[in-house]
């Protein structure tokens, strides 16, 4: 390996590391607020990327129909829940149902109408990207409503099993929606930079810039806004949050939606660089998981650091031992877990 190759690999590693960092942060956020290990996060990356590919081919992506169908199911679930609660408590009007109808029926319909209308028009690339995000992200609160909200006080093990189920359902639907073939989107950054003799691809620069901007926005959201502070409050003390009126379901929905928005943006960022198919989400999501585990699933900065370790490791092993690339990345979790077990043994003894 000569220095040029080493630097190229480093570039790649940092760019993928930035993506894993965003995913790891999203996973830590969801876990802190809801205790859900959100395995299907990788599917949101892939759904967005493949939806973008279809939009760029001037077709209406079939994810639109999935959104409409899922919205209808969520609305019916809300009606059933409403009727049941009404048996027990006669107070409260029909307002929650209107809200549910707006969110689960009207919003998907409006998005479908916009996408169908625009799909035949000449567009610029940011519009395509926005459309892909608009189709995929509203699936997040619906999935939360259907899969997780009924289990709001379940323990993480149950939530883990539900996550696996959601993951498999989304992979199966993905095969149906996008077909078995892989694809990549049109490049959004064709240019290159030359930094003291080293060529840096525009795509890498864009990924890094986007990742940093997103992290700053997330930081400001959590540090400065009331909804952000409310999410932190749930993570810090769930009962305390309930006592001031921060609903577990409301905050869970918000956390998952936010995480899926991050995942969708990751999907946009990587879509021109990597060929993705319906199965690719699994590995992407799991690597975000490894990064989050490196951070102990609680610390954002450690998760980000872990993500860059994963990205660089992946990049260099693909050069030296590309057949064993995934094995090496995932084996890394074993020493980390051992280390964490030994490190936490001292507090275990006190219980």
């Amino acid at each position: 390996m000569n220095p040029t190759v080493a630097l190229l690999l480093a570039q790649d590693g940092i760019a993928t590391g930035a993506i894993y960092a965003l995913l790891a942060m999203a996973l830590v956020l969801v876990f802190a607020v809801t205790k859900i290990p959100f395995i299907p996060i990788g599917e949101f990356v892939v759904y967005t990327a493949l939806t973008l590919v279809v939009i760029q081919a001037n077709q209406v992506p079939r994810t639109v129909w999935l959104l409409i169908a899922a919205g209808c199911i969520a609305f019916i679930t809300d009606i059933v829940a409403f009727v049941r609660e009404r048996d027990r408590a006669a107070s409260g009007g029909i307002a929650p149902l209107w809200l549910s109808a707006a969110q689960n029926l009207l919003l998907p319909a409006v998005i479908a109408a916009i996408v169908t209308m625009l799909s035949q028009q000449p567009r610029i690339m940011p519009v395509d990207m926005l459309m892909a995000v608009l189709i995929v992200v509203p699936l997040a609160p619906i999935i939360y409503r259907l899969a997780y909200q009924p289990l709001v006080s379940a323990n993480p093990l149950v939530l883990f099993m539900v996550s696996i189920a959601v993951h498999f359902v989304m992979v199966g639907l993905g095969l149906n929606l996008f077909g078995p073939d892989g694809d990549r989107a049109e490049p959004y950054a064709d240019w290159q930079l030359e930094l003291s003799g080293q060529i840096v691809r525009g795509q890498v620069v864009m990924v890094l810039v986007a990742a940093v901007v997103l992290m700053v926005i997330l930081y400001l959201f959590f540090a400065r806004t009331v909804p952000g502070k409310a999410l932190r409050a749930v993570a810090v003390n769930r009962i305390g949050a309930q006592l001031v009126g921060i609903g577990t379901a409301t905050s869970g929905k918000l956390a998952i939606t936010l995480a899926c928005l991050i995942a969708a943006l990751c999907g946009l960022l990587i879509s021109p660089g990597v060929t993705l198919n319906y199965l690719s989400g699994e590995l992407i999501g799991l690597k975000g998981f490894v990064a989050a585990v490196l951070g102990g699933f609680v610390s954002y900065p450690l998760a980000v650091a872990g993500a860059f370790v994963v990205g660089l490791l992946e990049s260099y092993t693909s050069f030296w031992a590309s057949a064993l690339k995934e094995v090496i990345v995932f084996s890394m979790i074993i020493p980390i877990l051992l280390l964490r077990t030994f490190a936490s043994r001292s507090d275990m003894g006190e219980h």
Partner: protein
Amino acid sequence: MAAVLDVKGLQVRYGGVPALAEVDIVVEQGAIVSVIGPNGAGKSTLLNAIMGILPANASAKGQIKFEGAEFSGLSVEKRVFGGMSLVPERRELFGAMTVADNLLLGAQRLRHIGAANPMSQLDMIYQMFPRLKERHTQFAATLSGGERQMLAIGRALMAKPRLLMLDEPSLGLAPLIAQETLNLVSRLSETTSILLVEQNAKAALNVSDAGYVLEMGKVTAQGPAASLATDPRIIEAYLGVGKKKANPGN
């Protein structure tokens, strides 16, 4: 006077174990009502059931009428938005967040009901507890016991509750601060009705309008606070005066 809270036939079981059996409690508008009784009588369970924060293995039955509306079966957030506030025994503060943020989040109810200025209470809270103003940038976890109690009460008051429930507000505090807390409770009744659970029965009855004695999950005595405080059986059991001294004739 209309009843703010009217609880009838409230039963709570943990798994199969009964904790409360057919408890009836009424809190009149603007009144301070205290619930006294030995450890394990179900006092905290009573407040948690009214607030809707019983643990997952508990089941509750019975009527909880709040300002005329049935509240049993509602989620905690709906009860908070309706006007209930609970200061729990364990305070349940947001330890890793600042004092100011704790208070800010206390106003979620006012944001939900669309109040013009959700933070209108803040100045009043800072006036009531100048200590909290001094420490507003400090993490809640770094406060002393008394300050944490102030913050817990302040956070609950940020919602402008119609009914404030306090679970052992003087627990773990130095006697002087405990007494101050109870004096504060009596001042708070100008703006809200109060349901108070207190170990220090004598001090609690001193500031209350009415009282209930809870034993083994049942109400065994009730009435105006003044008459409970002179009831020989209650004096003997809870007011810390020796048997012979209190009832020489018996």
